[in-house]
């Protein structure tokens, strides 16, 4: 590497690092100072903390519990549509939370399919609001994520292991104990920790399905303190608490497993010779069908009701969609700036032998996982209020928070690609004297382009579906599309909400598809 090029890397990487530290640790300092004046924790504060931990624990436990038999069944079965199904398990990661919530309500809600069926059978009504609804929504989102991680663990086993087992006639319980369980035991704790972390920062699900003194998460409590009670001191105090919860959970997740992002594509698995008995075939079919129903029914409900609701869409929806696209575009720009700068810095440090510094910068890149969106959001309000109107900057601030949240994932995608480019052809480029833009174009671009497109698509889709800090900043008169859907749904314009859901799905997956496509040569 030439001096000039690495100066450039140091400069942009340094700026990206400074921004990220300001957004995370800086936010922590801000809420810490403000929160310190708000006094000790009150009993509602404690209730929010306990409820946050309780629902996150139960969501993670249920998701992993169902994910294990699902992953096991998907790992050993070949059937038509299997690869599509395993790819679709990655889709909820990109699905806007509010869409999934509306789907869950359509199936499990007061006048949903299941309630209707139970009423028809004379079993009484199901109340989805509170803990049950929150758990159903969280499992809907995270069961596929957990199943993919465990499936990955099974797919990573050396193929010889299945063959040795097949030769020795190891089947059923013996196979589970000898081959499958060690792989599951290695991947399940990481999946549990990740789901716990995701659910510990749950806002939209708690906003739509929880609430009240008995079902309020910390994020929801922060929002209520800031927006309803205008009590920034309490909001900051709760934000400090939220940071402690997330940082501890992130630390545990980091210890038990390597950080993961949603990986593209279907998992190809080796051929298997076990599980040919009728009982195991029936068992696997049952679990796959059950999960397909559980995940598919809400999506089908959204589609059916959304098609009806498309007629109810007004100019308000399109204006909101436009705002969401602005947020997505800004978020992509900021995510790529932050993550490219940081990734280049980390790789450059690593190459120069500054391993410990590289590792520290790498850890800094994971800080947004510890700082929840509302921690950053509250810090923005506290800092900006004396000098500017945070509400006038709603879209920009939402984009910044979303970009910070997407950066750890983008880093996981970009760093390996940049390192690979360097390891494989770095010396060749050095010996040819490739520097500056030529080096960028010849050495890095071909390797980085595809992961860059994927990271951009991921960041855009997440930002477009965000129903988090936007609720904190935005005024009801100028909502983004997810916020508008929530407002429509809670003001009983339910058909329009489902119609808007279809628009939001199309936008989210459209943005993801577009950028992912742009990345492919």
């Amino acid at each position, binding site marked *: 590497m030439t001096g000039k090029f690495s100066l450039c890397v140091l400069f942009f990487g340094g700026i990206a690092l400074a921004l990220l530290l300001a957004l995370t640790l800086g936010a922590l300092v801000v809420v810490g100072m403000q929160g310190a004046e708000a006094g000790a924790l009150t009993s509602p504060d404690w209730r929010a903390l306990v409820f946050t931990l309780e629902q996150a624990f139960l969501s993670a436990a249920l998701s992993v519990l169902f994910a294990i038999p699902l992953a096991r069944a998907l790992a050993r079965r070949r059937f038509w549509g299997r690869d599509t199904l395993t790819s679709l398990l990655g889709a909820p990661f990109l699905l806007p939370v509010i869409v999934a919530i509306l789907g869950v309500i359509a199936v499990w809600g007061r006048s949903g399919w299941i309630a209707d069926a139970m009423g028809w059978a004379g079993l009484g009504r199901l109340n989805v609001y509170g803990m049950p609804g929150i758990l159903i929504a969280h499992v809907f989102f995270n069961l596929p994520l957990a199943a993919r991680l465990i499936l990955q663990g099974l797919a990573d086993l050396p193929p*010889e292991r299945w*063959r040795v087992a*097949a*030769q020795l006639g190891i*089947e059923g319980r013996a196979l589970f104990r000898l081959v499958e369980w*060690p792989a599951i035991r290695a991947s399940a704790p990481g999946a549990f920790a990740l789901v716990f972390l995701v659910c510990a920062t749950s806002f939209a699900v708690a906003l739509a399905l929880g609430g009240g003194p008995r079902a309020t998460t910390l994020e929801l409590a922060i929002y209520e303190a800031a927006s309803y009670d205008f009590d920034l001191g309490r909001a900051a105090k709760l934000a400090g608490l939220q940071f402690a919860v997330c940082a501890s959970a992130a630390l545990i997740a980091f210890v038990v497993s390597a950080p993961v992002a949603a990986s593209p594509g279907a998992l190809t698995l080796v*051929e298997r010779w076990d599980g040919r008995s009728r009982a195991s075939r029936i068992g696997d079919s049952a679990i796959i069908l059950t999960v397909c129903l559980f995940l598919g029914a809400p999506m089908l409900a959204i589609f059916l009701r959304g098609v009806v609701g498309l007629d109810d869409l007004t100019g308000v929806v399109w204006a909101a969609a436009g705002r969401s696209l602005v947020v997505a575009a800004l978020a992509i720009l900021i995510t790529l700036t932050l993550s490219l700068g940081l990734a280049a810095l980390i790789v450059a440090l690593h190459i120069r032998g500054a391993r410990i510094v590289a590792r520290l910068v790498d850890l800094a890149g994971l800080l947004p996982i510890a700082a929840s969106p509302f921690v950053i959001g509250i810090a923005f309000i506290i800092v900006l209020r004396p000098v500017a109107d945070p509400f006038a900057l709603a879209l920009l601030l939402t984009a910044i928070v979303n970009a910070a949240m997407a950066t750890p994932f983008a880093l996981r995608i970009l760093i390996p690609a940049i390192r690979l480019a360097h390891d494989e052809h770095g010396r060749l480029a050095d010996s040819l004297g490739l520097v500056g833009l030529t080096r960028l174009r010849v050495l890095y671009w071909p390797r980085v382009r595809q992961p860059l497109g994927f990271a951009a698509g991921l960041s855009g889709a997440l930002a477009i579906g965000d129903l988090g800090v936007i609720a904190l900043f935005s005024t009801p008169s100028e909502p983004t599309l997810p916020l508008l859907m929530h407002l429509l749904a809670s003001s009983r314009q339910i058909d329009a909400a489902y119609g808007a859901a279809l628009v939001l799905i199309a936008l989210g997956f459209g943005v993801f598809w577009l950028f992912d496509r742009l990345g492919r040569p």
Partner: protein
Amino acid sequence: MIVVHNALIERGSFRLTADLTVPAGRICAIVGPSGSGKSTLLEAIAGFLPLASGHIRINGEDITVRPPSERPVTLLFQSNNLFPHLDVERNVGLGLKPSLSLTPADRRAIADVLDEVGLADLAARRPAELSGGQRQRAALARVLLRQQPALLLDEPFAALGPALRDEMLALIDALVLQRGIAVLMITHAPEEARRIAHLTALCMEGRIDGARSTDEVFANPGPELAAYLGIGS
């Protein structure tokens, strides 16, 4: 005795035709460039790939359509023949009982074969605590314990150094002669074939046409083998 009769194996667009006989107590080397289908043949004999047509017989029994666990053969891989979280004794014991409920008699039998391959003192170790050569010996001990008439080796010693490889070849040589096992062995090294294989079969462009005596093959290699070995014929 391993008999592969008029076998056709299809894997995607790749086709392998094979005709081959390995008598009991004999070692047959398969020599040929990579991608020519050597591993495909072993996988088909072990039951991991179906035959499009033809037959496979072991000691006179037709096993063409049996699942892998019901074939009296063991295919030994280059690595991962052992389960990482089980000690050597139980890894070998899997050859007797997949459930691993080992009786004192089973344990004595395991100790005997471990002794034969020179691992008597290492029964309590896990694979991670063994060298590459020791791991392959443990896998070999399991093969002995199963008392099967046919052994397939997919370059299981390719990752070992020259001295260890010699040792393993000598071990195979001794055990096979003693027990009358028929061995089919893939190798990239002609000297390996010359050293222990009684027979050598050529695998070229998806075709295996019987085995001849190793001495004869290398004395009179024919144009294809000569080109592969890089010697004038």
